[in-house]
């Protein structure tokens, strides 16, 4: 399991625009880099990131090899209600890692 650093405010006022910061540890191997034996290392990147808010998708990103290793993504969403914010990263092999944080909206 890769490490995900997530920064989401624990509380927010209803209607407030909150900033979500994420950092996911992954080498994001581009497929253009030669390995020690001279052959190109195969591509292996996180190609998709989805953020859900109480189950509804609020942000989605398609990532390409030009994204730096350990993908850093910052975006915003409106704090509509208390609940769970889900963040998931999917790599080229179809493996998905999901993290959840709760937010209290008053």
């Amino acid at each position, binding site marked *: 399991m890769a490490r995900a650093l997530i920064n989401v405010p624990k509380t927010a006022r209803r209607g407030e625009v909150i900033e979500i910061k994420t950092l996911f540890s992954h080498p994001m191997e581009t497929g253009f880099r030669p390995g020690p034996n001279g052959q190109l290392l195969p591509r292996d990147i996180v190609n998709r990131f989805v953020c859900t808010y109480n189950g509804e998708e*609020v*942000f989605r990103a398609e990532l390409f090899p030009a994204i730096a290793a350990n993908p850093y993504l910052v975006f915003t969403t409106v704090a509509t209600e208390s609940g769970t914010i889900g963040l998931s990263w999917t790599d080229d092999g179809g493996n998905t890692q999901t993290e959840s944080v709760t937010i209290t909206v008053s």
Partner: protein
Amino acid sequence: MYGPSGVPTRRRVLAGAASLVSLALVRPGRAAEGQLTEALAGFAEGREIRRGRVKLDLVPLVENGNTVPLTVTVESPMTAEDHVAEIAIFNERNPQPDVARFHLGPRAGRASVSTRMRLATSQNVVAVARMADGSLWSDEAYAVVTLAACLEG
């Protein structure tokens, strides 16, 4: 240029070969401009991309091309009728033109995304925003890269 039997003369064959070789020696720069133009055309699907409303923040001098922070912000009320639906980022001289596609909507509240990209060499980066009504707006920034990405580490 053709001999009596219709066969091309030696002079013509050599001239033809020379022009082929010069095509192969075209600097990567020319191919790169085509790569960016093609990628933008593919994203635009026939619509015009206008400059404005989008702000691409990219440092002009990059020490390490392996990790280059950038932020894209778009002026938009982000309401159901008027919001940014998608932000696409393209580059000019990496092996591939795509960098990222972000899908937003009214629930974003603000059209602002940040990430870090790789830059293989000094080049232009373009951010295009597709609005809810289909219109396209863009901003472009140039970065000089001291240490190229993709080649080591």
